């Protein structure tokens, strides 16, 4: 622990030197003209929450993941010049849109990466399409990005609300949790997650008794928990994320919700959230993730490298998605030999099979959805954990073919109806 703190201190010293929009440049070793770039450089913009409730699960970690992707791809050796910039969207769609426009119009950014917060992501999705650049989403959840809002310029890498509902929702209904009450973050993500989970619950023979919507970033959940308690449902579904979900889980323990016979289903819980709640309160929680550091040698090696650069903090699935997605993007740019036509690069990303150490083999579908396995985990008991970040037991692997919404059910206009 002390060692970690020391590392964190060293890191923070470095971080402070960077302004919010720090610019990191990876120079090309030899400037051979194999790949023709617009203005000779591939410019990556990492846009996410760097100061609010989603800063730990995306934030600076996503910038580190992007740097690692550029290094591991060997951009310099391949004669490609890559530059990474980053900014804070403060979870506000207007701020995010302004940054995106500035980046694409003035700063010649070629690809916008990450963008947690579905509200911001949907706004950026439209702007990137209009400017014909690339939007590689890892952080946002709404399944609309590959549904009715799908775009030929967007790839949705890591997870989405449909996959979460399908993982956690189905598992919970099948083990007897057939009546649900939802506590929902009142914005695009929470609403999409509630919608997709309700559909799963109903399709598996369960019932939804009600829901309550709370504003984003709410400190006190006791009122909502009490409403959930009086609904008499077997399951309280938490359709929120970040500190909203950790506060809700912590306060549910305080109000004796679980002792009262109701169970919590955290529909989007990241490893950073489990770390913040502590195993004592989080044990037994079932959750769906696309990535966990302790899966195989590839994920372990990468995660340890990441943690060394991130003040000892381990990666979330969002960080992993930024890394793997960018690797795939760089491969596509190399194949197309240009980064100027966003739609063309994304079309190439859909052609090439995906392959990396973190997500294994997969594909990017016609609607922009990246297909890979998803995993159902159960949070360990404190006694079973060997130390910080040793938190999950694998309960089930959801094979790629079943993990995401079938292509014909998303109403994506890019998908031809057969």
């Amino acid at each position, binding site marked *: *622990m002390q060692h970690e703190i020391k590392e*964190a*201190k060293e890191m*923070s010293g470095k*971080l*402070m030197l960077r302004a919010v929009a720090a610019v990191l440049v990876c120079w090309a070793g030899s400037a051979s003209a194999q790949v023709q770039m617009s203005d000779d450089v591939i410019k990556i913009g990492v846009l996410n929450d760097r*100061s*609010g*409730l*989603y*800063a*730990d*699960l995306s*934030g600076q970690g996503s910038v580190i993941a992007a740097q690692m992707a550029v290094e591991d791809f060997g951009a310099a050796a391949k004669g490609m010049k890559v530059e990474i910039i980053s900014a804070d969207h403060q979870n506000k769609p207007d701020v995010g849109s302004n940054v995106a426009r500035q980046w694409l119009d003035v700063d010649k950014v070629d690809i916008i990466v990450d963008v947690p917060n579905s509200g911001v992501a949907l706004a950026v999705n439209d702007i990137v399409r209009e400017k014909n650049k690339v939007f590689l989403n890892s952080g946002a959840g709404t399944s609309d990005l590959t549904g009715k809002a799908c775009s030929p310029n967007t790839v949705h890498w890591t997870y989405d609300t449909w996959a979460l509902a399908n993982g956690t929702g189905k598992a919970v209904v099948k083990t007897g949790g057939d009546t649900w009450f939802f506590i929902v973050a*009142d914005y695009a993500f929470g609403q999409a997650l509630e919608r997709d989970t309700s559909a799963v619950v109903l399709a598996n023979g369960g019932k939804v008794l009600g829901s*309550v*919507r*709370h*504003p984003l*970033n*709410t*400190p*006190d959940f*006791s*009122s*909502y928990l*009490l*409403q959930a*308690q*009086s609904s008499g449902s077997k399951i309280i579904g938490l359709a929120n994320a*970040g*500190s909203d979900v*950790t*506060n809700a889980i*912590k*306060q549910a323990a*305080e*109000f*004796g919700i679980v002792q*009262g016979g109701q169970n919590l289903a955290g529909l989007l819980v990241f490893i*950073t*959230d489990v*770390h*913040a*709640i*502590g195993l*004592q*309160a989080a044990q037994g929680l079932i959750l769906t993730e696309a990535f966990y550091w302790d899966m195989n040698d590839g994920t372990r090696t990468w995660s340890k490298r990441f943690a060394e650069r991130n003040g000892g*903090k381990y990666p979330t699935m969002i960080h992993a998605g930024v890394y793997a997605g960018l690797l795939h993007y760089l491969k596509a740019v190399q194949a197309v030999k240009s980064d100027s036509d966003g739609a063309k690069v994304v079309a190439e990303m859909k052609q090439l099979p995906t392959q990396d150490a973190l997500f294994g083999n997969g594909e990017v579908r016609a609607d922009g959805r990246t297909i890979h396995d998803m995993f159902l985990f159960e949070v360990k008991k404190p006694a079973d954990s060997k130390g910080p970040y040793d938190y999950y037991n694998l309960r089930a692997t959801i094979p790629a073919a079943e993990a995401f919404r079938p292509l014909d059910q998303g109403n994506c206009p890019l998908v031809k109806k057969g």
Partner: protein
Amino acid sequence: MFELLGIPPQALFGQVMLGLINGAFYAMLSLGLAVIFGLLNIINFAHGALYMMGAFVAWFLLQYLGLGYWWALVISPLAVGLLGAALERLLLKRIYGLDHLYGLLLTFGLALIIQGLFQNEFGSSGQPYAVPPALQGGHNLGFMFLPTYRAWVVGVSLTVCLVTWFVIERTKLGSYLRAATENPALVQAFGINVPRLITITYGFGVGLAALAGILAAPIYQVNPLMGADLIIVVFAVVVIGGMGSILGSILTGFGLGVMEGLTKVFYPEASNTVVFIIMVIVLLIRPAGLFGRAS
């Protein structure tokens, strides 16, 4: 059984109770602000950051020294109070003669710096802090399950608020304080060390924020952003109550907690706006606030 607006009375009692609990935090924080503004004329925007520091000191004590909740309850307000006194001596002292805006900008800047440093060091998802064993569990009141810890929070907060009010409004020390703000030169002429009195007052107001921070630690995460989330609402409470009115800030704190709690039942989407709607209405009707004196 009767129903009020479609909600069974039991559920309603439960929500009123929860509102009082949240109101307890508003009351303690706005009390500190009111004391500082009323006696020092400083709009203390650093209050939220110091509330957060109170919670973090409790976490440090547990993490590095193994000292639990009860120790923290004593040490943390003292430590943060001392820091506050140092801030007052080093920085705030220099701007008493200037417009309110300077104090506001100075403390706002301090708040951003403190918060930024903590966030860089500890991230944004927070640190766990458990409810002390003696206060775990709860009681079934018939209409709701009341966790023991929340009852404790309301008790402590009410006691602290009333004692503070009593000391300032009804004791000799309080009368010195009030006199010192009205006419410092005259009070000094009676042999009272006014600058020290002011430092102590600021330290005390800030210590109240730290105390609220420790009370909050087991309920919320110990999170660098916990103060920033709360401080805006607390300022609205102070404005509604009447800037500087001590009793006003206590009553408004609890009252608005209840209003917010009820909004969470009837129209939850508006629960974080309702305080500001009330503020607008109050300012239109009574510009000096509910309990403030028009100057």
